């Protein structure tokens, strides 16, 4: 279980995280989706205690990361596959992890085997590894001490299609055993194939969250009003679930007429009311990525 509560992080004038809240639950794979630079990595780094939060809090298994005893035995992290000493062999990297977390050294061989690094590859220095091999080593390192929670930043990067498929199976299996998985990606189709829940983040804000089915269905009603908060309260009181929308407003899981009646009863002035099925997750995500994609082309 990972709980992120009103997390804020600023670097000078740049806001990396703006009031980010979400929960990743045990037994489920939670996909953290957003374009490059949206704040996914920053949020994960704050959760892992590497970056101090500007405001708000993050807990893993009910505690701040720094308060976890022997954190490797509780949380498996892969934040950057390249963050390994180039002069150490893959086997040595895992051996150091095994000694530090106090797990049986035989697990090193078992993990190498699990992620498909051969004896020969394991004895090569990380300097000579391809990105895909580094990712596999990083996953082996994350799983080494049998954690309950996995936090993986763009784990599919550099993996070939077979590797990506293998990773999906692995993460689904991990969640099926009751583990919590939080993984990030900037690719929608990668996330939608593995995640039970999706959190969409853009420009440091959570712009949508919900189960994969809900978000992909894209049905319901998009509504904007002069007081979204009051409307949301009224809708929820009436048993209608709602989610935030990228461009402001709410996505209500019901038809426009019901929303209109609730708004009338609550005395909230509507500014927009339309069927939400014309605006799926994919389009929302494309909108989000368009801005950063343009910047990348220009750069």
């Amino acid at each position, binding site marked *: 279980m990972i709980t992120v509560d009103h997390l804020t992080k600023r670097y000078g004038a740049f806001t990396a995280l703006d009031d980010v809240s979400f929960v990743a639950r045990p037994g489920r794979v939670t996909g953290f989706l957003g374009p490059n630079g949206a704040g996914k990595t920053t949020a994960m780094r704050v959760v892992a205690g590497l970056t101090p939060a500007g405001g708000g809090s993050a807990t893993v298994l009910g505690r701040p990361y720094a308060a976890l*005893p022997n954190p490797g035995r509780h949380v498996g992290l892969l934040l950057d596959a390249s963050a390994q000493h180039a002069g150490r062999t893959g086997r040595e990297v895992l051996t150091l*992890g095994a000694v530090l977390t*106090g797990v049986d050294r035989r*697990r090193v061989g078992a*993990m190498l085997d699990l992620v498909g690094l051969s004896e020969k590859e394991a004895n090569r220095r990380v300097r000579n590894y391809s990105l895909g091999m580094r990712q596999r080593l990083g996953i082996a390192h994350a799983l080494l001490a049998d954690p309950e929670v996995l936090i993986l930043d763009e784990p599919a990067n550099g993996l070939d299609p077979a590797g990506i498929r293998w990773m999906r199976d692995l993460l689904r299996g*991990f969640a099926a055993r009751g583990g919590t998985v939080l993984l990030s990606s900037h690719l929608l189709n990668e996330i939608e194939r593995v995640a039970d829940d999706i959190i969409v983040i853009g420009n440091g804000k959570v712009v949508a969250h919900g189960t994969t089915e809900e978000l992909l269905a*894209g049905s319901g009603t998009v509504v904007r009003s002069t007081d979204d908060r009051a409307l949301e309260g009224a809708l929820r009181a009436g048993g209608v679930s709602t989610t935030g929308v990228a461009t402001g407003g709410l996505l209500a899981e019901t038809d426009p007429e019901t929303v209109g009646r609730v708004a009338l009863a609550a005395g909230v002035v509507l500014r927009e009311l339309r069927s939400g099925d014309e605006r799926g997750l994919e389009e929302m995500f494309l909108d989000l990525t368009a801005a950063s994609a343009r910047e990348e082309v220009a750069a």
Partner: protein
Amino acid sequence: MSTTTRTAVRDDAALQHARMPEPIPGERPTRGIPFGRLVTVELRKMLDTRAGRWLLIAVGVVIAAALTILFVQGGGDHPFGDYLQATTMPMAILLPVVGIMAVTSEWSQRTALVTFTLEARRTRVAWAKVVAALAVGVVAVVFSFALAAAAHAAAIGLRGAEGDWTFTWTALLGAAGYVLLGLLQGLGFGMLLRNTPAAIVLYYVLPTGWSILGSLWSQAEKAGEWLDLNRTMNPLFLGELTGQQWAQLGTSVAVWVALPLAVGMWWITRAEVK
């Protein structure tokens, strides 16, 4: 434009094919990583890279060369003190790099990311590095004393040199202090600068800098009596230290060893680990 309603295509069917890691039986730990284990790991990290290994090989080669010269020159007829210097000096000069790299490689190789997520209590990691560096230093000092004694004995036995085993305890303490303080200073510079070339250059340029400054400016010359580690440690080799010499040694150690370590540790607990 209307999007077709899509349902998530998940690969639950493939689940039975996925190999999963074996769970570790028993309870998850409720206590943190013991300090001794942190020290063990830090020691291993100092020696398990090429850089670390080559550095030790280099120390060995320089010592071997120095001993060979002593052995050949003048029929090997030198006092024990000379042999001791031949084994200790190379260590005192080169081992601080082990201390520097124990810290800076965490940043240059970005392993700090892993180190500080497996042990989030960063000060403990920093102290483990200090203890590990001191352990390396102590082993090196003991080894250098033993090697010097063996070489001197060999010179007496094989080359017929006249034995001269006289030495003062302060000289031994000085030799040990030289190696250990150098290692700690290296660690401190590493923590302060977190950049291998910068820390190494500063470490080696500093003593030369003092002598250049001292020759140009008499105030610096005076300050050097209290701040130049090379000068303040020198009396250790010669014999007894006066009260003022101890004070000078203490001041220079506080400025170049304790202060960088303290500031470096403070920074490490606060820094954003990239």
